[in-house]
Every structure is written in C-alpha cells, then in structure tokens.
C-alpha cells in the first residue's frame, strides 16, 4: 500500500499534525511556565502546550481505520489524535488561541481539545483518565447495539442528543472506541481498572499505548515494574501487539487487523506503539534533563522522514510529497490568521455550560 493513495494519505495526516504543532509551538513562545522559562510579551497560545512531535505515525496509522461514529479518547498530548480523527484544523487553532470559535468556545484550550462531532471525546489533563471513560463509551456502544428488543421510541437519538455522531451513526452498528494513552498512564490504577472492565464485559475497545518513553520530566522505564503495557494487558487476557510506532505503515497494517477484530465483536485489544517524545513535556520545557544522544538517536527514526523515504523509494514523486507539505503549511497559515482575527468569548460565557440545575451564578 505504500505507493498507493493511502500511503500519501497517511503522509498527509502526519505532515498536517507536524505543521499544526510547529505553528502552535511558535505561537506559545513568550509565555510563562511552571517549568522555569519566562519571557516578556504575551503568547498567543497560553498555558501548557504538550506537543506530539515525533509521534505522528501512531494517530495517523490508527485513525485511518476509524469513522466519525467511532469514539476516541485522548491524552493531554492530543493534537495529533484530534486531527487524525477528522477535526477541523482551523477550529482547533482557534481553540488553542482561546477564541470563541474554537471547538470548546475557548473554555478548554490545547489540553482539552475535542471535537465531539467526529467522535473525538476530548484530550484530558489527567493521566489515564481517558481509559475508564473509553470503556464506558464502548460499554454504551455494546448495550445500544444489543438494544433492538427495547422500545425504539425510548432509545436515545444518536449521541444522546448532544452533538455526538452516536453509536451506529453510520448505520453499520459495529462502532468501536479507541483509547490513546501514554506509557506513564500504565502506572495509574484507572489503567488496570479499565482493562479489567473491558475484558470482563468484552467491550469493543482498542487501547493504544503511545510509548514515548517519558513521563513528564522523568524517564518511564525506571518508574515501571515489569515489561510494560503489553505484559499488563496479557495478564488480563487482552491480546496485545507491539509495533514500531515510528513506522506509519507498520502501525497502519497492525491497526487494520486489531480494529477489524474489535469491530467484529472480538473484544478488547491493545496496541503497544513504541515511539519517542522529541520535545519536552510542555513546549517551553527544553528537556535539558535528557541525554542528547538519546534524542539524536530518536531523530534518526523520525516517522515523517522515514515515510517520505519509503514513499520515494516506492515511486511517489518528490513533487507530490512537497505539494502535500506546502498545502499543510498553507492550511496552518490560514488557520493562524483565522485564529488571530477571531473574537474572544464574551466574559459571560464563563457562566454557561456549567450545569442546568443551579447553574453558574455566584450563589
């Protein structure tokens, strides 16, 4: 498939993610961070910005097999997942800028980027928090699939009537949930609780561990007993597959099999993708705590460069790939301009969408 249209499609997804994050990183300069760097001037992207540079092959390869009615939960490092699931790039940039036209109306920012209309249920500021939510969404998918015996009138509209595409929205009724999490998450209880839950109820969920080797500013390896995500999944009778997470074609091929198994009712699966976090924990973290040799070695396996080389070798013209890169940069430039010009939320919006009963007042 590497020379086919889908090969360039995967390349396009990765390149768009890289271009988006490069621009977001530039727009975050001048901000203030808990990690020590401070500078004068106001950053346009404020607060913690967690970049997935170098990890683009994982969402690209996995999400290629998903449709809008499949659900996705994400991590604090969720730009790539959101773009790969089909979210509008300009509205994402608006959200990072905190503008009213962002997906969350400026209430969430980078760390809570989400587009429910394509089933992307949100990036999450708490490590491992997406896992139990994912199994709940998958549990709902299973229950609603089994619901024909119930009164159709009483069944929820797609997405429960609140903007989601909803289980079975495509009519195929075999939608699944994909849950991205990092290697740091496997040391939190909700990881274990969610995997157990998924297996006990045989839910249509694919767990994807993006193993980027770093937990904030601490290397994950010395903090993790045993052999990691795959071994822990195996201990709960969940079939796990390791893959080179910097090889988008390998991720794509492995995910194709796992998604098909989950979609056909085979129960949960885990994909353990070995990749690397090129940047620091947040954009202003220069990762000075890291051995430069480790980073240099990792950059040798950059997923975009590898995919480009692979596609060229397979006969795709350099001009085609250049055009894809230029288009991504143009798209991001347009998004930056849109986000820059977009209005801020009304201050009163801070009082909306809190809750319905006893809603957002001083008392």
């Amino acid at each position: 498939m590497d020379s086919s249209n889908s090969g360039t499609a995967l390349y396009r997804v990765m390149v768009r993610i890289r271009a988006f994050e490069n621009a977001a990183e530039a727009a975050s300069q001048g901000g203030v961070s808990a990690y020590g760097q401070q500078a004068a001037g106001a950053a346009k992207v404020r607060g913690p910005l967690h970049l997935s540079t170098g990890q683009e092959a994982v969402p690209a390869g996995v999400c290629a097999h998903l449709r809008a009615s499949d659900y996705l939960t994400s991590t604090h490092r969720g730009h790539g997942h959101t773009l790969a699931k089909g979210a509008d790039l300009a509205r994402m940039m608006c959200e990072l800028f905190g503008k009213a036209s962002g997906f969350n109306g400026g209430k969430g920012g980078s760390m809570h980027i989400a587009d429910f209309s394509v089933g992307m249920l949100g990036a999450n500021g708490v490590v491992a928090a997406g896992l139990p939510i994912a199994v709940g969404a998958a549990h709902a998918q299973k229950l609603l699939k089994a619901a024909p015996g119930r009164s159709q009138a009483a069944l929820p509209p797609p997405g429960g009537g609140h903007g989601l595409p909803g289980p079975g929205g495509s009519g195929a009724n075999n939608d699944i949930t994909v849950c991205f999490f990092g290697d740091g998450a496997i040391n939190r209880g909700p990881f274990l609780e969610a995997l157990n839950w998924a297996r006990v109820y045989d839910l249509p969920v694919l767990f994807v561990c993006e193993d980027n080797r770093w937990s904030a500013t601490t290397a994950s390896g010395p903090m993790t007993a045993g052999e990691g995500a795959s071994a822990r999944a195996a201990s709960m009778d969940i079939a796990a597959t390791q893959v080179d997470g910097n090889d988008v074609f390998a991720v794509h091929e492995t995910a194709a099999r796992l998604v098909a198994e989950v979609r056909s009712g085979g129960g949960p699966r885990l994909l353990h993708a070995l990749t690397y976090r090129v940047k620091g924990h947040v954009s202003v973290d220069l990762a000075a705590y890291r051995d430069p040799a480790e980073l240099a070695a990792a950059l040798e396996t950059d997923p975009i460069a590898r995919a480009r080389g692979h596609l060229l070798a397979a006969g795709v013209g350099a001009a085609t790939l250049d055009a894809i890169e230029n288009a991504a940069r143009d798209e991001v430039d347009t998004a930056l301009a849109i986000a820059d010009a977009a209005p801020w939320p009304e201050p009163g919006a801070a009082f909306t969408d809190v809750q319905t009963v006893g809603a957002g007042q001083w008392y």
Partner: protein
Amino acid sequence: MMMKDLSYSEAAVLALQHEMQADARVVVLGEDVGRGGIFGQYKGLQQAFGAERVIDAPISEAAIMGAGVGMALAGLRPVVEMRVVDFALCGMDELVNQAAKNRFMFGGQGRVPLVARMPGGIWDASAAQHSQSLEAWFAHLPGVVVVSPSTPQDNYSLLRAALQCGDPVVYIEHKTLWGLRGEVNEDLAVPLGKARRVREGHALTLVSWSKQMQACAEACDALAAEGIAVDLIDLRTLWPWDRETVLASCARTRRLLVVHEAVQVAGFGAEIAASAAEATGCRVARLGAPRIPVGYAPVLEAQSRVGPEAIAAAARKLLG
C-alpha cells in the same frame, strides 16, 4: 393518587423501576447491584430489566464512575453505585475532574447525565471509613447537583428528578435511613432545589437535611413544650439550595440555626449561615460534629453525634 407505604430503600427501587421503564437509556452499574444492593435499594431490578441494564461491577470505583461518564457521553443515563460515600473517594478524579468538568471544559459539546449514589453519614459501629458526611465537598464543586433526601417520599421523588435533570448528580442517601417507612405518593414530583417546610414557627429558623431532620424534629418537640415555635426546614437539595425559602424564613424569625451531621468546620452550614447573615442581617449559629474521625466504641461514636439535646440547647442560646 397512588399511595404506598414504603421504606426509604423501597421508595428508591420504585423510582428506578419507573425511570427504567420510561427510559431505555437508564442503566445501573455498581458492586452487588444484581443482588439488590447492600441496602436493598436495587432489589428486583436485575430480574426485571436484565443483567445488561443492571450491571454487576468489579470492586473498581474509578472504573465504575469513569465508565458512567463514558456511558453518559455516549447517550445513556447511568446510575452509578458507590456503596458508601467513603468509597466514592476512590472515584474522585472521575467525578470531580471528569463528570463535573466535561460539559464546561469542552464548551458544551458533551453532557454527563449520571446519578452517583453514595450513601453518607454515621453507620452504627462502622468507625472512621464508613461513617463520613462529605456533602460539603460536593456542594463546593461547580458542575454537579447535590441531593440528600430525608424521607421515603423524597427519596422516591428526588431520585426520579435526579435521573431526569441531565446534570451529574451526587445523590447522598443516609446509611441508616434505609428502613425508615412512610407514605409515598407515586404521582408526586419534587423539584430539585426546593426545600420543604416541616414545621412552622416564628421564634427561629432551623435548617437541616437527611438523617439529622429526625434529631431536629425531636428538638422542636422539646422546644414547643417550652413555648418556642420553630420554623423547621428540610433543605433536601444542597446544590442548588433553596435560598428563597430559607431567607424568607430568616427575615421573619431573625434567627437561624443550621444543623448537620458533618463536621462543623467548613461545613455546608457555614455557607447557609453566612448567606442568611449577609442577606437578612439575622443572628446565625451552626451546629455540627467536632472535627474528629468517627470512632468505633459507642462512647467514642457518640462524640460525633449531634443529638436533640444539643440542638435544643443551641436554639435556646440563639434566643437568649
């Protein structure tokens, strides 16, 4: 009018029966729910609605609460069973950072219509980890509704209202009210956020909720014998709380006593007292437990109990 004599737990079962029949989106998940729940508050529901809708769960509070959030986002209306409020602390990220924040954080894209049942209060001889009253924690949390019914009728009506309201609801039944019997009108709707005036009086306003209503009623009897007529208000919902009813009463009586089973320090009584003082200039007092964990031995446990005598004494002091 359909009147039934029911216990507090039977009233909850009846409420769930009605809601589950009316709405296929309503599901129950939690430990022991298939056997009816540890207090009988789910009795017969799995037999009636099947194991797919009344879901027995592993001892896994974070997953139960978190799965409830995911189910709600995907279109269901889960009832999330925590056994006791003390154990709900194991699912606190899932409630505080996920359920309560989802709708706002994602700009209204998501809704989390779940009801988290977490029985609270002193459970006889159950010591420090099974007897806590933590309602003030949740009232402090933007994004949730907090309900604490004191009678079978309210447990029936408020549980139905909680399931229909579409917000995340922290639903705190009292661990020792399950056997309390009373008349339940199946047709009676009780809105969230509306208090109930239990007795009318002019001498002072007494506000409480949940199990503590019983001690307050006893104190009112003692005070009535002395010619002191108390305006007794059962708050029923802590968020939103019925400011209108409470403040109108305070404006009339000019004296407010708030009583709760929870520790007095930073309790919800402080919120009501401060609000009443700010709005009406009335004299205020609050009465709760000392800031100690609940002990096991009867004499130690008694130190945490706010009884009718202490309530009556606090009322007399406020009047003096």
